């Protein structure tokens, strides 16, 4: 007489099938079960080899970021700030990303990732400090701001002093930069053409040790 399988056994068997299925679809990238899998996909797109998670944070300012996690990753030759968002149909998927090359021996490598949705905007500065003597940083932005009549415009230069707490040490003992940037770029309602962003690094006495270009990437999502 065949013994009846218990509910517990049947459930555990089915759970094992689910786990195998999740492992397969996650591994193939068809349905990312974990946010890190989609981070690996974004790293592939940005050509960041062997990405290592430096930090992860949550910022729901934009509606599209309410079910999303932001990652700062370092692949040695390149850094990336990216967002992995979740949707039940798609799993964790690539929402936005910005990569910065970091192989050239420069003292600081920095990127600015801006994302606009409706009337809201978030801008994050991220990067890596490869000069141990740099004590403070500032970002200098040059932009053209257009008036609503689309003919009048003027040039602006803004400076953002990077707060000391934005510089932190990762588990790999390297120093990184990560902070939201307010006031450096215009409101979402203004039409601005950014011409350049530069990052300056200073030692404790205020002497300039580094002056590098910042890679700026802008994303835009339609309002819900």
């Amino acid at each position, binding site marked *: 007489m065949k013994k009846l399988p218990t509910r517990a056994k049947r459930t555990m068997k089915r*759970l094992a099938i*689910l786990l195998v299925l999740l492992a397969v679809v996650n591994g193939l990238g068809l349905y990312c079960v974990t946010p890190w899998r989609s981070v690996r996909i974004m790293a592939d797109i940005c050509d960041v080899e062997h990405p290592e998670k430096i930090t992860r944070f949550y910022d729901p300012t934009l509606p599209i970021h309410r079910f999303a996690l932001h990652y700062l990753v370092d692949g040695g030759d390149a850094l990336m700030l990216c967002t992995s968002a979740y949707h039940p149909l798609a799993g964790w998927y690539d929402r936005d990303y910005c990569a910065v090359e970091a192989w050239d021996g420069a003292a600081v490598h920095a990127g600015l990732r801006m994302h606009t949705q409706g009337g809201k905007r978030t801008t994050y500065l991220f990067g890596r400090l490869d000069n141990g003597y740099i004590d403070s940083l500032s970002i200098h932005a040059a932009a053209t701001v257009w008036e609503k009549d689309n003919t009048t415009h003027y040039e602006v230069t803004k400076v953002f002093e990077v707060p000391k707490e934005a510089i932190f040490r990762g588990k790999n003992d390297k120093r990184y930069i990560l902070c939201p940037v307010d006031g450096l770029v215009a409101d979402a309602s203004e039409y601005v053409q950014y011409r350049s962003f530069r990052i300056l690094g200073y030692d404790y006495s205020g002497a300039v040790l580094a002056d590098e270009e910042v890679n700026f990437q802008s994303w835009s999502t339609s309002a819900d």
Partner: protein
Amino acid sequence: MNRNEYTGQVVSVMRHVTAAEIAAIREELEGHIEDRAATLVESGCPAGEAERRAIDAMGDAEEVGRALQKQYALVWLVAWRAVTIAIVWVVLCAFLFSFLGGYRVLCHVQARFFPRSHMSGSHAEWCTQELDIKINVGSDQVYIYGAGTNAGKEGTVRLYASQYDRWPLGYLSSHSIVFETEDGERLRGGGYGQSGGVRYTNWEFELPPGTDHIYAVAERYGEVTRVEVPLHWEVRE
């Protein structure tokens, strides 16, 4: 009480049991009763009496039902249904996206092994020379598969390449190749199209007829790969 009535009484005290489980429980209990009755019949007991004794030996129907209930706890029914829904959901979503994944695999196979099948129009007419030059750029590969030249007029060279991630379900990066002369002069001109995770690029340069080679250069994070691309000149109308 016959076996049907007995098993009916057993399952009547059980809660949160599905129809399939009820059928399986009744089948098992009836099987036990049948086996016991068969043994009694073999030892000389009449069939009707044997069944009655077999049923009595099973014990009180309600007690049996309560004992069986422990194996059918509600929490496992909920868990089983949740896991089943999750499996169906993942299969549906993966099935939807597997079309995209399957399409990308097809595009990858075409770009890697049959890139010429992608060509049409003037490009197909121009691409008369077969090349087989593969350059790795990070996790991508650039495959220069064809060329066409015209020694008439200014001397025109067209080169054709496909680019894909070496993993069929991988993603293309923005790194690619450029071309330069023996002297290191960068050559410019061309366009590309991208779909299904692969990129097809064609370049067109003007070079002195008789130039026997140029170089394909891949630069990636400070590493430079330089590969010679031979040129064979034709005269076209």
